[in-house]
């Protein structure tokens, strides 16, 4: 405990929900204020800017659809990552796992002669398995050979990116694409339906929310979830308790990779209807999802909301770019400011500030809990 003027500052181990939400909201407000100065400096009235952003996002049906559409891949990737992160397994590979799902779904869509709805089901199933398999590899490397998973998951992204490039320039290059690097279009049965009047492929949304609930249940109510949490707290304790480290992280990564892959299936079956350049299938969703999961503090249900927050940030960026006609770099500055303040404010949640009671004396560094 420490006295600063009339205030007492105290460190706490786990911040209460009110502190998390309060501090985060304050951080966003401060970021918006700083962004307002930039808008003003660029010659755009901040009031007009935020009015336009509100109209183009939360203030209209089109805007809300846009937020949903931009958050779809982030929900699935983010929920999947919370599972890996709870086991303290730093999966930086959601991008590659997402692309693995896109590849598997494309293979099924183009080459499997399945009727009607079975085709889409098979695409999601194949995608899940492919992403899960892609996710298990770094888990095995870590458990058997002590390979740092941050490096291996990150590197495997590039392998998958080049596999996609190879497929669209090589064996899967579409006969109807006049030599350009795209696969052929999927048949109609392999395309996801949209919410009418929007481009929101709603089955992916349903799957994403269901996945969040399922992962929350796994973590809270199953033996696997318990083991994941124990491994995340302490691998030594887990070993002492007889928990099979390999089995636990392999499962966590199978599910984590599989969920990211479902996002990839959603992108090719709901947006592109073909395999195309990896940078256009995923605009860094797998990396953005890391922040989604991190801001959600490992809670799959909260990840749905942080994913929606990012959908909102992206949609706002589009408004800045198109309606306000600022250079596209401003979008990056805007997004960056929000993240900077959100992440930078995190330490504040761990400090409790209150008025010191009258007469209480400064007692030196007795409570040496401060860092």
């Amino acid at each position, binding site marked *: 405990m420490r006295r600063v003027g009339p205030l007492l500052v105290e460190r706490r181990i786990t911040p209460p929900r009110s502190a998390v939400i309060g501090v985060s909201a304050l951080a966003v407000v401060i970021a918006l204020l700083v962004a307002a100065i930039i808008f003003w400096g660029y010659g755009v009235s901040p009031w007009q800017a935020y009015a336009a952003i509100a109209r*183009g996002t939360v203030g209209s049906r089109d805007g809300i659809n846009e937020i949903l559409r931009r958050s779809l891949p982030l929900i699935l990737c983010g929920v999947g990552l919370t599972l890996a992160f709870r086991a303290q397994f730093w999966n930086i590979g959601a991008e590659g796992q997402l692309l693995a799902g896109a590849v598997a779904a494309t293979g099924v869509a183009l080459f499997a002669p399945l009727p009607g709805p079975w085709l889409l089901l098979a695409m999601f199933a194949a995608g899940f398995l492919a992403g899960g398999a892609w996710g298990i590899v770094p888990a095995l490397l870590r458990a058997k050979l002590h390979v740092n998973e941050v490096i291996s998951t990150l590197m495997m992204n590039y392998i998958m990116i080049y596999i996609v490039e190879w497929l669209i*320039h090589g064996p899967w290059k579409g006969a109807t694409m*006049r030599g*350009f690097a795209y696969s052929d279009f999927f048949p109609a049965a392999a395309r996801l339906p949209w919410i009418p009047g929007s481009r929101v492929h709603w089955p992916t949304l349903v799957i994403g929310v269901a996945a969040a609930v399922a992962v929350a249940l796994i973590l809270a109510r199953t033996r696997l979830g318990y083991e994941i949490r124990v491994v995340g707290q302490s691998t030594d304790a887990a070993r002492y308790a007889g928990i099979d480290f390999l089995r636990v992280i392999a499962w966590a990564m199978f599910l984590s990779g599989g969920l990211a892959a479902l996002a990839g299936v959603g992108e090719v079956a709901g947006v592109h209807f073909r395999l*195309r350049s990896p940078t*256009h*299938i995923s605009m860094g969703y797998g990396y953005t999802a890391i922040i989604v999961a991190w801001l959600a503090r490992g809670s799959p249900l909260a990840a749905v909301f942080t994913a929606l927050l990012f959908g909102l940030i992206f949609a706002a960026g589009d408004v800045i770019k198109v309606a306000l006609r600022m250079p596209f770099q401003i979008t990056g500055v805007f997004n960056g400011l929000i993240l900077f303040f959100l992440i930078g404010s995190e330490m504040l949640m761990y400090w409790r500030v209150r008025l010191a009671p009258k007469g209480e004396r400064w007692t030196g560094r007795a409570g040496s809990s401060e860092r």
Partner: protein
Amino acid sequence: MRLVRLVAAVMVATAVLGAVGFAQAKLKVGFIYVGPIGDYGWSHAHNLGRLIVERDLGVETVYVESVPEGEVETYIDQLVRQGCNVIFTTSFGFMDGTLAAAQRYPNVIFAHCSGFKRAPNLATYMADFYQVYYLNGLMAGALTKTGKVGYVGAFPIPEVKRHISAFTIGVREVNPNATVHVRWIYEWFNPAAAKEATEALIAEGCDVFAFTEDSPTVVQVAAEKGFPSFGHYSPMYDFAPNHVVSGQIVHWEEIYVDFLGKVKAGEYTAKNLANVDYWWLLSQKAVELGAKSGMPVNPVFEGALKAYIVDHPVFGRISVYDLVFVRLAQMGNPGITFDPFEGPVYDRKGGLQVPAGHWMSYDALITMEWAVEGVVGPWPGEP
């Protein structure tokens, strides 16, 4: 009688006012770019065209840069909502999204760059470089001492393949044993990869360079080692004034001004564009040969090119310098009398692709997957 005159006067006045009113229904033109306007390549060049349109035609323009291919429809929606009545989409990957949007907004005029799908309110346009690449090839063939010319290619798609083949035809017209060595980088904009590819080509023995990539990297890396090169897309003379021989420069404004002029005049409407396809080359001034605009050949290389005399089957003994300008005149003036792919042209596997006396059709050009003799290196999708 008086009444008739009055009615006639009112009718004339209405018609005149109506026409004026129509002409004043201001055009608002939207441009959607795939890259940043600061890339000094494709999107940069389209944006220069937009600025000239704004200046010369006095129309209002709006642009969106760095639009991912799958997102084009969202941005079209936003531009239409803002009141754009003409929209240009400037990447092949925007094709199907633009077509879908054209069907959704039948009263908006669309034009898509480099694609092949059209609709009553969707035209297509392209300014192509293959003739210019051929002319640059003539100069490269004269300047190489090792007989190996290096080429850094972006993607192995028909457009780039066509350009490399036209370039190679030029090289071998003046230097029949020379070869063109190709490295692909699989990016439109990636200076690091372009640098690596150029260095690998230098290690292979190449001493003259051409490329398809949206930065001046190849020019700079080659110049560091003292090798000549050809600029691409934007004028690159200033990046290495002693080493840029010539290059390809685009003038999208020629197409934009022509198209929008016809829209303003009421010639193009949202109902009659199904057959409007601009395939503009040297003779329409949509592309230009030069290290920079107005400098077809860098004077530094004039002496070397004039000293390189070939025994040409058509023109007899002629310097490469003169040959370049003869060919430029043949392709650059209306009534074109020469095409780089004039038969007989064989692919590098020995198959006859263009019979003697024939030129390639437009369809054959834009779907071209084969490589001419003299191209060395991997060629994905080679038939």
